[in-house]
C-alpha cells in the first residue's frame, strides 16, 4: 500500500519535472506580466508616485474617437487580411497536397518556406524597395508608359494588406496542406461519379473535410495579423493606424504605461472575442481544431 503510494508520488514528481519548463515559461513570461499589466491598467496616477484604482484608462478609450476608430479599423483589416490569406493559400495548398505531390510537392512547400529564413524586417524592407516612389515597380510602370510619373505605391491600405497576406501565408498553408493531404481522393471521385461538379465537390466534400485546417489557419493568421506591428508601420507609414502602434505610443512615447496596458487588454479581448465568434459561426471547438490540424 505504502509502496504504491510512493510509486504514485514518484510518478507525480516525474510528471512535474517534465512539465516544469513549460509551466515556468507560461508562468514567468505570460501569466505574471499579464497580471502586472492588468493591475497597471486598472489604476490611475493621482499625484507624483501616487496611484489609485480606477477605470479611467478604459474610459479614455471609449471617450476618444481616435482610439476606438483605430481599434475597429484594425479588427476589420485583420479579418480582411485573414480572408484574403485563405483565398490565396487555398489554391496553393491544393496544388501542393493534391496535384504536385511527392517531390515536386515538397519542393513547392520549401519554396513557400524559404522567404521565412529572412527576418520579417528585411522581407518588409524588400517590399518597400519594390513599391516606394523611386522603387522598382513604379519605375517599371513609367517605362511601360502606363503612368506619366512614378506613383507612390507605399502607404496605402492595399499595401498593408499585401504585406500582411505575404507575411502570414505560410501559417495558413501548413494546416491547409495537412488537412487536404488527409482527404482521400476517392471521395472526390465518388462525388464526381455521383453527379457533382467542381464547385459542388468543393462545397460539399473538400471544405467540410478541410474545415478544421481552415479554422486553425484562420485563427493563427488572425492573431498574428491583429498583433502585427512591423508590417503595418513600415508599409502603411503614418496612415497605417494599427492598434499596436497606439499601444507602442502609450508605452514608449507617452510613457503612459497604465493607458498602454489597458489598450493591450482591449486587444486581447478583441482577438479572443473574434476567435470565439468564428468558431461559433462554423460550429467547431477550439480543442478539436488544434488537435486535428
Amino acid at each position, binding site marked *: 500500500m505504502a509502496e504504491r503510494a510512493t510509486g504514485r508520488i514518484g510518478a507525480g514528481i516525474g510528471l512535474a519535472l517534465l512539465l516544469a519548463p513549460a509551466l515556468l515559461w507560461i508562468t514567468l513570461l505570460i501569466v505574471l506580466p499579464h497580471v502586472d499589466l492588468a493591475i497597471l491598467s486598472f489604476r490611475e496616477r493621482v499625484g507624483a508616485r501616487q496611484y489609485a484604482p480606477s477605470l479611467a484608462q478604459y474610459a479614455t478609450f471609449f471617450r476618444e474617437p481616435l482610439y476606438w476608430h483605430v481599434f475597429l479599423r484594425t479588427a476589420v483589416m485583420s479579418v480582411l487580411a485573414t480572408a484574403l490569406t485563405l483565398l490565396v493559400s487555398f489554391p496553393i495548398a491544393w496544388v501542393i497536397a493534391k496535384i504536385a505531390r511527392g517531390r515536386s510537392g515538397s519542393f513547392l512547400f520549401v519554396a513557400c518556406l524559404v522567404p521565412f529564413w529572412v527576418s520579417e524586417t528585411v522581407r518588409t524592407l524588400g517590399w518597400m524597395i519594390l513599391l516606394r516612389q523611386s522603387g522598382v515597380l513604379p519605375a517599371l510602370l513609367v517605362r511601360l508608359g502606363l503612368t506619366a510619373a512614378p506613383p507612390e505605391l507605399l502607404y496605402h491600405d492595399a499595401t498593408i494588406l499585401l504585406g500582411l497576406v505575404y507575411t502570414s501565408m505560410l501559417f495558413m498553408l501548413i494546416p491547409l496542406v495537412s488537412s487536404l493531404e488527409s482527404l*482521400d481522393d*476517392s*471521395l472526390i*471521385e*465518388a*462525388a*464526381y*461519379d*455521383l*453527379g*457533382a*461538379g467542381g464547385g*459542388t465537390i468543393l462545397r*460539399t*466534400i473538400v471544405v*467540410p*473535410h478541410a474545415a478544421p485546417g481552415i479554422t486553425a489557419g484562420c485563427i493563427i493568421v488572425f492573431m498574428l495579423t491583429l498583433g502585427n506591428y512591423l508590417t503595418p508601420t513600415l508599409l502603411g507609414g503614418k496612415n497605417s493606424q494599427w492598434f499596436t502602434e497606439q499601444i507602442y505610443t502609450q508605452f514608449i512615447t507617452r510613457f503612459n504605461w497604465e493607458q498602454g496596458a489597458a489598450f493591450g487588454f482591449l486587444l486581447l479581448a478583441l482577438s479572443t472575442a473574434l476567435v470565439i465568434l468564428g468558431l461559433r459561426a462554423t460550429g467547431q471547438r477550439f480543442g478539436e481544431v488544434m488537435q486535428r490540424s
Partner: protein
Amino acid sequence: MSAADLVADGVVKRFAEHTAVDSLSFSVEHGGFFSILGPSGCGKTTLLRMIAGFVTPDAGDIAIGGRSMRGVAPNRRPVNMVFQQLALFPMMNVGENVAYGLARRGIARAERTRRSLAMLERVGLAHAAHKRVDELSGGQRQRVAIARSLVLEPTLLLLDEPLGALDLKLREHMKIELKQLQAAFGTTFVYITHDQSEALVLSDRVAVMNGGRFEQVGTPQELYYRPRTPFVAAFVGANNRIPGRATIRDGERVEVTTDDGWSIRAHAEGAIAVGDRVEAFVRPEVAALARDAGDLPPDAVAHRGRVTSVLFDGANSTVLVAEERTAREIRIALPQTGRFADLKPGESVLFSFDPARAACFQARASEAAAAHG
C-alpha cells in the same frame, strides 16, 4: 436477346511505354453480372476507370446504353461506381450519403429523403439512416455504398474489388448478398476482382484479363472446365501445371513428356504438333487417388508416387504427391468420403486421371523461355 448495356470497341490505353489496355472489344448484356478477373497490374482497374470516365481511352470507343461516351464527363454518365475503399462521405450521415446523388440531380429534399429511405430499406438499413458512417460495420458500409449508387438507377454499376478490404467470413457472406442484390435490382453489374472465387460465384459471365487483353470470356463453367489458354487454366481454380514436350499426337490426345522423362496424356487444345513445347494442366479433383491398382478406373494409366504432405482443409483437403521417378509434385484432392483420412506423408500411392479432363496447350514463347530457364 436484350440490348447490350456496355459495348467497348477497340479500347486502348497507354501509360508512357506500358500498354495498360490493349485494343479491347467486348459487350455486356442488359441485366448481366459481368466480372473482369485478372492479376494486379493486368489493366482491369484502368478499364473500369475508362468506363466510369476517370480515364480517357487513347483509341476506341465505349458506349453505355447505346450512347457513345466519348467526351462525356464522369458526372454525366449513366454509370455509378462502388469504390474499392467504398469512399463513403464521412462528413455526412448514411441517409445524406445515399441522397447525395439525388441532390446533385436537383431533386427536392422531401423526395430525396423518401427515395433514399426506400433504397436503404431495400438493402435492410432503414434504421441506420441517421447513423454516422463510422458507426456501421464493414458489411453495412458495403450496402450503403451500393445503395448510394443504385438509388440513381444507373444503366451500369461498376464495382472495383469492393470485397477486398473485408475479412474472409464477411467476404463470403457479402458474395451471396451481392448476388442477391443484383438479382433483386436487375441492374447490369460490371465487377472487377483478382479473386477467382468471387468472379466464379458471382458472375453470369467472366472475362479473364492478362496484359491488357482478355484471355477468354465465358461463363464460369466454361472458364473452369474448358479453359482456352494456359493462363486461364492456371489462373482460374487450382491446377497442376506440367510443362514438357508433345511426344505423341493421336487425334485429340497428346502425350506430354516432361524434360525429366515423365509421360502423361492430356486433351489437346488448339494446334499442337509432335515436338512442340506444351503445358498440360490437371486439376486436383480430376486426379483419382488409390492404394491398390484395382481401385483406379480400369482403363486409366496409373502413376505411382509418394505422399509428401497432407493439406487438410475440410472439404477442400488435398495431398501433395511426388511422382515416383521424377519427384515432380502434383496436388490431388482428397475424396469427401474420408476414405483417405488416415493418409500419412511418406506413404506410397497410385493416382490416375482422365486425359479428356486434362488440358494441354502449346506453350507461349515467353512461358516456354521461362520453363527453359
